């Protein structure tokens, strides 16, 4: 064991001191805003959402700290294993989840119901970071070396698409794209892939479920069908717009309290916030996320292992995509694809996924001076 790691382990106490408490403060503040919004969405009640979300945050915080303190080399070592385990869970959802459940996204582990596709976002980051960590700069430029990571992306994406969960599938591809990008894959390859994807649009279009097609179509002109498919987006825009600069006041949002907003506790929670706290509130929350991402970038740039750098950037990108897709969606910039707002939206797995992700980010920070050789040896 000892020969495997070149740098000595830090003691638990020292690691605790190394934990990036500033980042945890930002995460907690964000979650607190989320709890307040869930409390408001339930018309001023801890039931049914805010109370449970608080417990989940507590559990998530514990998980975060545990993940942060485990030696980064352990994660490096078992990255593929974790990825493989999550892949198995996705298959299990496909197999067992199909019995007795309409939507095949959940797997019931008795105590909690897991959504493996969410956890897979972190699993994919770990696996790709591990893979690119082992490639030299020259190898990254060679096409054959890209086959393995592409398969790593394709397997979970295909399984998630089959559920079908288009949003998460695209999410996985985007996270992978970010890691490929910072890992140094040549830009022209991205151009080729994007071009091919564009060409594939008509084919993919024909395989989409009609509700998915309809969502994209009404996205283009939601007001054409204000009582039907475009209703959600229109009502969301009305809520946002009527909030104005400083909002209608906490718990005063007419759109959310009179149920004009769809899924206000999950995907449209940002609308509740922007209606009640206005653009000021929206920008403040956006600011917290930006701070979170700045921490992510800084940690990535500060890390000495390539694995750590890629994990940090992958997690930061994950946070970014969550935030961007969700907010762009409720503001009518992109189709409603069903992506939660991290730490704010009600939902156990999404919360856990993000806390795990931040856990890895802090882990990279704690172990910023640890080095791992390309093949596994310490530098």
């Amino acid at each position, binding site marked *: 064991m000892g020969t495997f790691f070149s740098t000595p382990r830090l003691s638990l106490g020292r690691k605790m001191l190394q934990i990036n408490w500033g980042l945890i403060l930002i995460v907690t503040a964000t979650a607190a805003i989320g709890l307040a919004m869930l409390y408001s969405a339930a018309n001023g009640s801890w039931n049914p959402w805010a109370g449970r979300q608080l417990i989940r945050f507590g559990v998530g915080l514990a998980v975060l700290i545990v993940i942060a303190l485990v030696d980064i080399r352990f994660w490096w070592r078992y990255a593929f294993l974790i990825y493989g385990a999550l892949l198995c869970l996705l298959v299990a959802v496909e197999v067992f989840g199909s019995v007795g459940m309409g939507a095949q996204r959940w797997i019931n582990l008795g105590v909690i119901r897991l959504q493996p596709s969410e956890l897979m976002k972190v699993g994919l980051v770990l696996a790709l970071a591990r893979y690119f960590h082992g490639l030299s700069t020259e190898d990254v430029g060679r096409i054959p070396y890209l086959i393995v990571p592409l398969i790593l992306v394709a397997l979970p994406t295909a399984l998630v698409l089959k559920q079908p969960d288009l949003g998460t599938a695209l999410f996985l591809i985007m996270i992978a794209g970010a890691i490929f990008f910072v890992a140094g894959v040549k830009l022209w390859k991205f151009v080729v892939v994007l071009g091919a994807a564009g060409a594939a649009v008509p084919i993919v279009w024909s395989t989409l479920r009609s509700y998915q097609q309809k969502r994209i179509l009404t996205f283009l002109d939601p007001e054409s069908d204000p009582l039907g498919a475009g209703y959600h987006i229109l009502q969301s*825009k009305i809520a946002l717009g009527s909030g*104005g600069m400083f909002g209608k006041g906490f718990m005063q949002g007419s759109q959310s309290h009179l149920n004009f907003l769809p899924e206000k506790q999950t995907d449209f929670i940002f609308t509740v916030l922007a209606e009640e706290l206005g653009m000021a509130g929206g920008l403040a929350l956006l600011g917290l996320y930006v701070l979170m991402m700045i921490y992510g970038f800084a940690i990535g740039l500060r890390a000495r292992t390539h694995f750590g750098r890629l994990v940090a950037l992958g997690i930061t990108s994950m946070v970014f995509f969550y935030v*961007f897709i969700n907010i762009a969606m409720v503001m009518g910039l992109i189709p409603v694809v069903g992506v939660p707002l991290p730490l704010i939206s009600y939902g156990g797995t999404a919360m856990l996924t993000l806390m795990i992700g931040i856990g890895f980010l802090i882990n990279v920070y704690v172990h910023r001076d640890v080095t791992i050789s390309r093949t596994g040896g310490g530098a």
Partner: protein
Amino acid sequence: MYRDATRFKRFTRRVALLGGGKFVLLSLLAGRMYQLQVIESDKYKTLAEENRINLRLLPPPRGRILDRFGRPVAINQENYRVTLVAEQVSNVEDLLDSLSGILSLSDHERQRILREVRRRRDFVPITVRENLEWGDVSRIEVNAPDLPGLSIEVGQSRKYPYASDFAHVLGYVSAVSENDVTGDPLLELPGFKIGKNGVERVFDLSLRGKAGNSQVEVNAMGRVIRELSRQEGQPGDDIKLTIDRDLQKLAADRLKQEESAAAVVMDVHNGDVLVLSSVPGFDPNRFVTGLSSRSWRELLNDPRTPLINKAASGLYAPGSTFKMAVALAALEAGIVDQDHEVFCSGHTLLGNTKFHCWEKHGHGWQDMLDAHQNSCDVYFYDIATRVGVDRIAAMANKLGLGRKTGIALPGEKNGTIPTRAWKKAALGSSWQLGETLITGIGQGFVLTTPLQLAVMTSRLANGGFAVTPRLVRPQLDDGRSADPKFKPVGISDRALDIIREGMTRVTNVQRGTAYSARISDKGMEMAGKTGTAQVRRISKAERETRVLKNHERPWKERDHALFVGYAPTKNPRYAAAVVVEHGGGGSKVAAPIARDLLRATQMRDPSGSDAVPNDEFLPSKSEEA
């Protein structure tokens, strides 16, 4: 060793690019936020309010209609309806089954309810049945625990406590039809009713009032969350009629002894209509709740025309009641005087045509007063020929005949007072002398309404002032009602005195045609004139054998009986006109009715005070409704 430095350099470059890209995208979000929440905020604020707020109209209570003493004759009654809220019911079919045990629900009703349940949102109350009897209401209330989702609601509906007695004066309210829609949002309220006839129609706008409104907050499903503001409407104004409720009821009861009749009693000085009755009537309450098409057809096809207000819209040949106009025309033209005498042999000859007097044995020598007293037709043939039809028509018009009186009732008729020009225009042929004779006894082309006859009688009685009838007294600013000043129509007092003397004789001289219908109470004596209007031509052959008596003929072919009168004979105050369709002779049928009405009116003297008079004298005491 691998060259980590180069890898880190490229990594750093890429991170910078990625960070830059993300920053641009997040700026895009902030920009969009600015667009929605600052630039377009007003638009979305309006939309949010529109989402949130529903404006509901509150129908104002309709004004009541009162009689001249302020006693209500059209009121708003609480109306109970049972409603169903589908979301509180587990199975609507089962509920309707249990309800059938209490109310009998027809299949048709059942279908309608189920259809509405499907169409409306779950929380919208659906009317199961309206206008519940009190018994049904209490049975439902008692069984309420077994009927979840059902509730009794109280609304207001129009009620006419005197039913048919006031039907033609009041009219009725009924559902708004497409033609009635004027833009008043009240008219678009489901279940709103407007005046469709009578006073209800003419004064509809005053009675209706102004709608209030209530702003309510609704959620996305349309459920009302709370009321934000409420502006009470303005209740409709009460309308005070000139009608005396007790007299009106008395008249209706009296007329109901005949098949089909109309009567008017009015104040000769100010035009207050105290009685305006047409029999048979209809029950206006049935129009409020909705009349079945079968009942409607029955009313429409009834030969006694219950839907028509015969007092203002029924046209009748005035018969001998027209003779005062003929006599006045002759006196005022200076062609004859009081002493002009005519010999009546029972008929007069014009060329080869015989014109009969109703007394086929003849009246002998008749002067003007005799001719009134005996209603001698031959005398009036003579003076009508002398004065000519156009001057008769001019006098009739002065007395208010042949044109609408302007009373506040829909459907009032003009009637016809023929002239040479009128016949040329209407029929295209020239006037025949024989027609002047017929006009002289109020037959032929002459058509008047009972109301016009009452106006004529009033003008004769009040000294020739152009009184017009009114159902509602105009209110002065201080709340007191104003009496109009009527202009003289231009008839000399001397001539009027002669006519009034003739009319007095009719009922107060033993041989007068209506002596049996006199009022013998001191100071209440009645003056009048009988009339009998033929509704068919008596053929020559029939006259040579035997003219059938009225009661021997089918109802439709019997003569109309008329009487006009005023009382008291000295300083007259009230005038009456009575028409009994196919009633036979005016003296036997119509005069007693007029007598009863004028006697009761004088006893009460409703014009005398604003307090409700003692009603001891009324033949049948009216029960209070």
